[in-house]
């Protein structure tokens, strides 16, 4: 059996902020273990500041975790002191405008990596046309000499994806790739990711706060839910959406917007004890969600729950799984 494309083993990340005469430590990620299998789409969801972007950067080797291991195809990328370049991962950011060089045309942007990754000079033009065609920037000839500022957000993001697949990555970390794109075009970018996944077998780590888009993209994949640096629920996406078990994920689902007036008005948000997130640098003891969890007990304030497999490929970190009411979002339409 081949090792998974990406494996995180008990990865932690502590940021140290130097303030006047003191150091403030902020733990962004705590002992996260995660696997991204070949050809898989994994959605990593959570709210702002839960550490999901940090985890994405760690996965790629852009950040060195304070502890824990990052394995690409079974090899520790931080084995020894420096990062071993493997180039099996790529990243697509939220802001496509910042990701593209403003003084390079589409042609130049795509040409450099193609040449770097071994395309012969005489084949480059043909290859670029094929790429543009594939990502839906058509007709290619019209776009070849355009600069990023000529293009709409959706088009730019397509170029970024075209560029990211040139080194034939095994996986792509897509960090909120659609949040700056017009709502009517968001699905087309997700569709593009699905096609890349099907055509090239590229695995995706899709980082987002938008549950509906995660459900759309990773419908045959998996999902991991993060809260304050920890994974609280993980598993097969369909299973987790249907039988959400962690109170935090249930709360998120209960407030996720639904574009249907009757259904949206029927759902009551799960009442939390406290709406505000705890301050960074002051992580609660025990289960980190206990300050907001409506079901919290004494044990929750004392002992951190471990991620356990409660059903096949459905992992939950909660002491009270048996007591938390069953989740139903199955609405008749």
């Amino acid at each position, binding site marked *: 059996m081949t090792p998974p494309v990406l494996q995180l083993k008990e990865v932690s990340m502590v940021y140290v902020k130097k303030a006047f005469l003191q150091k403030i430590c902020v733990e962004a990620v705590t002992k996260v273990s995660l696997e991204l299998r070949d050809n898989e789409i994994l959605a990593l969801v959570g709210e702002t500041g839960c550490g999901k972007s940090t985890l994405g950067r760690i996965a790629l080797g852009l950040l060195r975790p304070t502890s824990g291991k990052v394995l690409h195809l079974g090899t520790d990328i931080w084995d020894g002191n420096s990062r071993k370049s493997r180039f099996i991962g790529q990243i697509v950011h939220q802001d496509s405008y910042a990701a593209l060089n403003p003084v390079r045309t589409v042609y130049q942007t795509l040409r450099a990596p193609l040449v770097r990754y071994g395309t012969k000079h005489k084949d480059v033009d043909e290859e670029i046309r094929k790429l543009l065609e594939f990502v839906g920037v058509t007709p290619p000839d019209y776009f070849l000499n355009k600069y990023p500022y000529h293009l709409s957000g959706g088009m730019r993001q397509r170029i970024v994806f075209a560029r990211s697949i040139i080194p034939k990555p095994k996986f792509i970390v897509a960090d909120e790739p659609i949040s700056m794109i*017009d709502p009517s*075009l968001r699905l*087309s970018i997700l569709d593009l990711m699905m096609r890349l996944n099907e055509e090239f077998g590229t695995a995706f780590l899709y980082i987002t706060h938008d549950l509906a888009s995660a459900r759309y993209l990773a419908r045959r994949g998996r999902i991991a839910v993060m809260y304050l640096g920890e994974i609280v629920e993980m598993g097969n996406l369909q299973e987790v959406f249907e039988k959400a078990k962690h109170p935090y994920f249930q709360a998120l689902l209960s407030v996720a917007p639904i574009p249907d007036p*009757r259904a*949206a008005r029927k759902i009551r948000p799960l009442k939390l004890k406290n709406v505000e997130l705890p301050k960074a640098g002051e992580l609660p003891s025990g289960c980190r969600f206990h300050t907001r969890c409506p079901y919290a007990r004494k044990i929750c304030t004392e002992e951190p729950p471990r991620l356990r497999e409660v059903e096949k490929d459905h992992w939950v970190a909660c002491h009270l799984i048996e007591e938390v009411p069953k989740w139903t979002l199955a609405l008749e339409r």
Partner: protein
Amino acid sequence: MEILNIEDLVVDYEVQEGILRSVNHVFLKVRKGEFMAIIGESGCGKTTIVQAIFNVMPSNGYIRQGRILFNGTDILSLDPESQRRIRWEKIAAVFQAAQSSLNPVLKIKDQVIDTVLDHRQMPRVEIFERAGKLLKVVGLEPDRVMNSYPHELSGGMRQRVVIAMALLLDPELLILDEPTTALDLITQAQLIETLQHLHEDLSITMLMVTHDVSNVAKVADRVAVMYAAQIVEVGSVESIFYNPCHPYTIGLINAIPSVVGDLSAKKPIPGTPPSLINPPVGCRFHPRCPYASRLCREKAPELIDMEPDHIVACHHRLDVKRLQHEVI
């Protein structure tokens, strides 16, 4: 009864590339006591409408024509001082990224006092009492918040402070421009609940401008859909979501994924929104529309009644329903 009546509004921006018509002959009525929403994508001109209502255009923006009637009086024809009186006393607004519209070096209570005293004479005790009540309404603890500086509050709390401040002078109309962007899911939901509550309990007329179709589904009574500087469809929330007649509305609703229900029929609208400097001739949606005909490429459609309280600007509004099944 209309509280706000926008008639034939045209707003231009002068930009390097030429004239950008951001609002093109828009007619819109907001009735007293209702929760109205304008949905549209970025750059479709929805925020410009709000700026025009307040007559606070950026320096390169010009209101070319049109009337904005508030309770029957044209706001734009009033002198600046009377306009200033209407703002905040009659119409209050919470602008985009309201979290950052508070003064960072003043405590909330000082900003509250400034706001009130600028418009009317009132003893401080009364102001505090009123502000305290409103802060409670939006779900905050008055004692703590009033003595805080903005940076001591979270984004969601600041947003709610701004909403409370908008209500200080008892406005008849509250305008919200993208109130939920930049907020976390749970905070967003709480804010939406607060707005619903304000609307129902204090019976304030609301006009919300947003691109978030899902939140509109949850709170709005009536919805106006905007595309490329024009209003293309207006109707009750039920008719817009369950019986949309403009191909853009149909496409937009079908392009929004959901956490429930079937996803297999969801698909994006092909193409991209047009440039407003050189908008397409005829119906502005025709380059992206699956039903476009010659007529659409030549003549712009007008807003026409479909059924009571449901207007649509589409030449093929009667056939769209039937064609929808054939094309797919």
